[in-house]
């Protein structure tokens, strides 16, 4: 680990991507993530083997990433909510073609043009595939500057391991917030495992094809089941979460990303008042840590889901716990950042209403 650097989130993602061996970026300007391509344009200019393209559209950008990925290069794009909607075409194709890529979504308020304030409005879109077709994308939700480093780098590893697009789901606050971070040693692209499926010219081998077209329904079904088995393996192996002060908790807050950061502050506050609250933070939103949340209900009978939207992840929490706990919801859509005080109030009300102390 190097020395600590004070950096804003978007720059951290860009630097971490470079250190992970990413050598292709194509993107299109949209707030609040412009600092990411701005940083990368300068960073990549210093590397002989890296390409930065400011594309003419989000569609072009994601399709350039698709082409880059076909050659085996670690490739990424980034955008914010409306731009991510446009990229869904390419993400669906890449899921079908089994091409790795990292897509950072620095979410803003919506629907439609919305605003440029931090929001978690795209949870459904990110965790349900997002585009057309029977597929999933791995979704990672960082909640701190340092985690932007680790999860960005992990995103590239997961994308390559499973040959699938990975979404890094942040929001305007994650993108703008400055925190001290440390970076690991860079990974040289030449040191990465060789990919045996890339398009690099059929020299002394049979020609290769990367496509998502399967006209024969039986072949399409076979491919769908192949993807399904891959997704099942990802669920089995890659689920990640953080438990915070849950050992003796009688109420658990479930929150991800920026909301989890705020919820941590709220939990600390109510703990000072003697209320036994803890935080369960999904780090992978897909695969969702459903078994781990279900296990929580052995000791916790009331769960408060807090999101910066009007209720999306709460559905996954309800599916996970079934009748084993009561799931409550507190949310602020539209780009509002709740204070820890507001969430502490919500926890306190819940504790007293249900006589949990």
């Amino acid at each position: 680990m190097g020395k600590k650097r004070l950096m804003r989130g978007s720059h951290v993602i860009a630097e971490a991507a470079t250190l992970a061996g990413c050598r292709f970026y194509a993107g299109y300007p949209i707030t609040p993530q412009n600092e990411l391509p701005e940083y990368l344009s300068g960073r990549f200019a210093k590397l002989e083997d890296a390409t930065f393209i400011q594309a003419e559209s989000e569609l072009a950008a994601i399709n350039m990433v698709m082409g880059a990925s076909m050659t085996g290069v670690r490739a990424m794009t980034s955008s914010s909510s409306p731009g991510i909607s446009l990229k869904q075409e390419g993400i669906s194709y890449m899921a079908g073609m089994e091409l790795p890529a990292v897509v950072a979504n620095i979410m803003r308020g919506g629907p439609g043009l919305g605003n440029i304030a931090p929001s978690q409005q795209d949870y459904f879109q990110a965790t349900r595939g997002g585009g057309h077709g029977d597929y999933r994308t791995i979704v990672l939700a960082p909640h701190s500057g340092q985690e932007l480093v680790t999860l960005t780098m992990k995103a590239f590893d997961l994308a390559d391991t499973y040959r699938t697009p990975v979404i890094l789901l942040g929001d305007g606050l994650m993108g703008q917030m400055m925190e001290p971070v440390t970076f690991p040693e860079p990974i040289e692209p030449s040191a990465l495992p060789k990919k045996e499926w890339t398009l690099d010219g059929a020299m002394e081998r049979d020609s290769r094809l990367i496509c998502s077209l399967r006209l024969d329904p039986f072949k399409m079904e076979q491919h769908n089941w192949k993807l399904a088995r891959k997704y099942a393996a990802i669920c089995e192996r890659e689920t990640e979460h953080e438990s915070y002060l849950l050992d003796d908790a009688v109420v658990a807050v479930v929150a991800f990303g920026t909301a989890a950061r705020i919820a941590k502050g709220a939990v600390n506050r109510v703990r000072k008042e003697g209320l036994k609250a803890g935080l369960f933070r999904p780090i992978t939103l897909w695969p969702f840590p459903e078994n781990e949340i279900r296990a929580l209900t052995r000791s916790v009978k009331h769960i408060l889901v807090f999101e910066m939207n009007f209720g999306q992840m709460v559905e996954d929490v309800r599916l996970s716990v079934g009748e084993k706990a009561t799931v409550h919801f507190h949310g602020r859509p539209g780009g509002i950042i709740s204070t820890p005080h507001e969430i502490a109030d919500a926890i306190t009300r819940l504790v007293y209403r249900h006589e949990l102390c």
Partner: protein
Amino acid sequence: MIKQVFKRPDALKDNIFHYCPGCGHSVIHRLVAEVIDELGIRGKTVGVPPAGCAVLAYNYLDVDMGEAPHGRAVAVATGIKRCRPDLVVFTYQGDGDIAAIGTAETVHAANRGERLTVIFVNNGCYGMTGGQMAPTTLLGQTTTTTPGGRIQLRDGFPVDLSQMLAVAGGSVYIERTAVTSPKNIIKTKKALKKAFKVQMDDLGFSLVEILSACPTNWKLSSVDSCKRIEDEVIKQYPLMVIKDTTGTHSGADEGA
């Protein structure tokens, strides 16, 4: 001693074309394969087929192929070429693909001077989906979505994408040809070879627009389809070198 004077190109697989009788794709595929053979680039060529009838080009061309979403071929090809400048990268696109849904990608790739070769097959309709109006459909031409013929007031004018691309600073060589006669087929092959060479010489963006028949959707015989191109389509889309700046500058010194 028997001397072989004609054979299947190495870059063309021994598969039976699925294309309709009289369709231009089969001829154009063969020309592409011959050019790849003659330039000796089979082992370093990557093709990007489009959505449409020719998406199955990978069943015939024996080179690495990466499929693109409808209209995005040059964007995908840009990603490939920028990561591997040593490869020869071509796209194969129809008129709906390149001149309607993919206009933005194509114009900007040409403007950036991407070192790509675009093979643009213009048959004036959406062949695979059943013959709907394309951007290149002629005024008055009947299609399944212009039952009384294309009307300018309602449907706009036929788009001349090649001319549009000629004004882009990064395009170096653009020629329009046809595959309606042996003479035109030979000219098409020459144009294709030049377009690939422009890329290999690192000069800039190259494109060959090929007027091609769709007898099935035009509801004409193969012979009458070729006649229609020569009598009617060429009036709208004349066969010519639309742009050739290969002798006047090289891409390498443009930025200087």
